[in-house]
């Protein structure tokens, strides 16, 4: 297939990072979707004093939760792609070193 552009170490790093990223970002997405309070401080909210009623605050918070859930899943998807690429590079590196 295509030539390899990563050495063995970089592809292994990418592999491990992708696995970790997929697991953690998927879980974070799930937690955002169910509205976990622990993640309340990690939401895109307007500046302090920007809310004039509790309802608008609650609406912003819920929108933020949904948005972040989707963002986390997008990032997880990107890490799936990284996993495939890194895995392929890693396999190619291993194969070439064995066939030597």
């Amino acid at each position, binding site marked *: 297939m295509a030539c390899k552009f990563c050495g063995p170490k970089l592809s292994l790093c990418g592999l491990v*990072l992708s696995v*970790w*990223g997929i697991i*953690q*970002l998927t879980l974070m997405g799930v937690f955002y979707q169910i509205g*976990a*309070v*622990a*993640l*309340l*401080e*990690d*939401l*895109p909210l307007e500046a302090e004093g920007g809310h004039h009623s*509790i309802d608008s605050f609650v609406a912003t918070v819920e929108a*933020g939760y949904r*948005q*972040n859930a*989707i*963002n*986390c*899943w*997008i*990032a997880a*998807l*990107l*890490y799936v792609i990284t996993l495939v690429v890194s895995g392929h590079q890693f396999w190619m590196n291993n194969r070439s070193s064995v066939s030597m």
Partner: protein
Amino acid sequence: MGSLFRSEEMTLCQLFLQSEAAYACVSELGELGLVQFRDLNPDVNAFQRKFVNEVRRCDEMERKLRYLEKEIRRDGIPMLEIPGECPEAPQPREMIDLEATFEKLENELREVNQNAEALKRNFLELTELKHILRKTQVFFDEMADPSREEEQVTLLGEEGLMAGGQALKLGFVAGVILRERIPAFERMLWRACRGNVFLRQAEIDTPLEDPSSSDQVYKSVFIIFFQGDQLKTRVKKICEGFRATLYPCPEAPADRREMAMGVMTRIEDLNTVLGQTQDHRHRVLVAAAKNIKNWFVKVRKIKAIYHTLNLFNLDVTQKCLIAECWVPALDLETIQLALRRGTERSGSSVPPILNRMETMEDPPTYNRTNKFTSAFQNLIYAYGVATYREVNPAPYTIITFPFLFAVMFGDLGHGALMAAFGFWMCYKEKPLQAKKIDSEIWNIFFGGRYIILLMGLFSMYTGLIYNDIFSKSLNIFGSSWRNNYNQSTLMSNKLLQLNPDSWDYLQTPYPFGIDPVWQLAEANKIIFMNAYKMKISIIIGVFHMLFGVCLSLWNHIYFKRRISIYVEFIPQIVFLTLLFFYMVLLMFIKWTTYGPDPASNFNNDDPEIVKTSAYCAPSILITFINMMLFKHDENSRPVCDEVMYAGQMGIQKFFVIVALLCVPVMLFGKPYFIMKEQKQRARQGHQPVEGAAENGSAGGAAPPAHAHHDEDITEVFIHQGIHTIEYVLGSVSHTASYLRLWALSLAHAQLAEVAWNMLLRKGLMSTDFQGGIFLYVVFAGWAAISVSILVLMEGLSAFLHTLRLHWVEFQSKFYAGEGYLFQPFSFEVILDSAGQGEE
């Protein structure tokens, strides 16, 4: 079967081996690896030992093998690892065969190399000549070109013209020189020949191979035109000085073409011969590479056996060798079997004799460990090898070490990463070991793989208790706190308090770990956790130290130091318990006594209920300080009781006085008993002089006891004084030292929080979908920071502090650590260290 509780029992044995059987028996013992030989000829020079010739021959063989290995490595031929079992040490007569083989191989290789070098030199000359012939063509053409005549004239000066009016015949030399030397060469020629020579040079594009150093060098072709013999000699001398090689170059173009063709054919021939030489060399090396590791092992084993045989004594009758060795008592059977096998193999008729010897020396310390326990045992030994038959702290370290690490590291996420790394190393143990990776750092991590795995697992547990995963809390069971404020209060206040003495707290605690609500309490989360973690640290510390003191009891019992039990162990336990264990009890009393009372419907002013509310909870530290100083503070909260339980003041005074009384017992008890013993022995010592004539055994019994040295009494006092001060002051300082468990876990939690807030949060702040891509990038950065700072740096730091807690706070309570390691004669150990020494 030995146990890890104490080190193994060792016996000093004398071994009588018949000279013929000695080699085979030592070989068997080397394979077994359970015997430590003592050097019976310590004064003898290495060159005067009995088997020095054999050792020399082995060294020679090793040298030849190393030369072969270097050549094999140079060609990049893979050396086969030994399949299956290591080969056994060959018989002495096989040594001659091995020597002959190595000699032959070495000679062959040297010959091939020399030939190759000569051929390459030849090849280089021919190549240079080829380049010269090619380049000088250009020069000669230019020379013949009439348009250049002005240059010639100006160079040769006016005399040339006046001499004949026609272009003079010029002599020339052609050669090749290193490119770097050309400027200096030109300058030298110009100065020495006063500008009367003419140098042309052209670079050779392809680098040439220097035959001796195998480097690629760049050279240039030059040609020097001159007139007259004097200039010729001068030019030649300068060329010699600059180590330029001169070649005969014919003037006529036809001659040059002929020469060029001749040179080409010769180069082709040489190429073929060179190729064949290289092939031959390659074949020889490949054949050698198959067996070289095998040979290395055999030669090293032979050498090790002869080294060991050099330690033996030769008997008077010159027929047998005598050896003294330390042997684990439980392994005597195995060793006898090995010796019998050795004698059978050598075909000797006389069986070897293994005698136990009595000795007053300290035997070496030997602990039977497997791959799991050896890592923890090494952690202990790094500080000091256990005294012979002392209680071994290693089996407890297997649990306390990862646990104390986890208290400092407590994070579910980082613990999971560490556990995954440890698990991968343990799962892929065999392939990773076979790879023999060079890096020292990797070997350190790999050697501690079980420790890392356990540390990771325990950290996951404490992460669940602290409810901390990458600085966020998990709400698994539902928080026990509720918000009861109305909307207007929420809208108008930035920070609000939830009162546990009300229905804000559901009065049943979160089932496992810290309640997740605390993550949101940015104002007083740290204050709350501090109170919790500091108390936990002291509780763990006091229990750890009490356990250490209890271990010293086993030592006293085993070494039959009955006096020490009464005069050291009991005061130590009493001191520690009455002061610090009492403080621990106060902590538990405070936790259980003071709190909200839901039955009374909260905010009740009934004084009895107020007395057990959180308002009246006393400070343990102040209580403890007042207890030690016999101080009595004024009651700053009049509604509260001054005491936590009835009779507290009296009990505390009693505890302090008894604890203080322990100090003189520790200080003077042992020296007093030793003085008494010495006086008794002195009295008894006079009597055996009379009784020796009558009863030999009684007289024999007293001197050994007398041989037990009579210490100077002041030394005993000083020794005991140091120990007591160390213990008493140490108990305070070590208890406080355990607060590092709190400090490091606080630091870890804060670092994790900073990493999340400053880094990962930035990726979660976007309001549209490109945030996903940004999060993808930010996550990688956050992951890198987490691993490098939080897992690696903090992990290393917590490891170090746990080690210190074990070595200093725990082991100083009972561990003497004055032994020396059992280092058996083992081929495995020798081959491993030789293998590592190579790389």
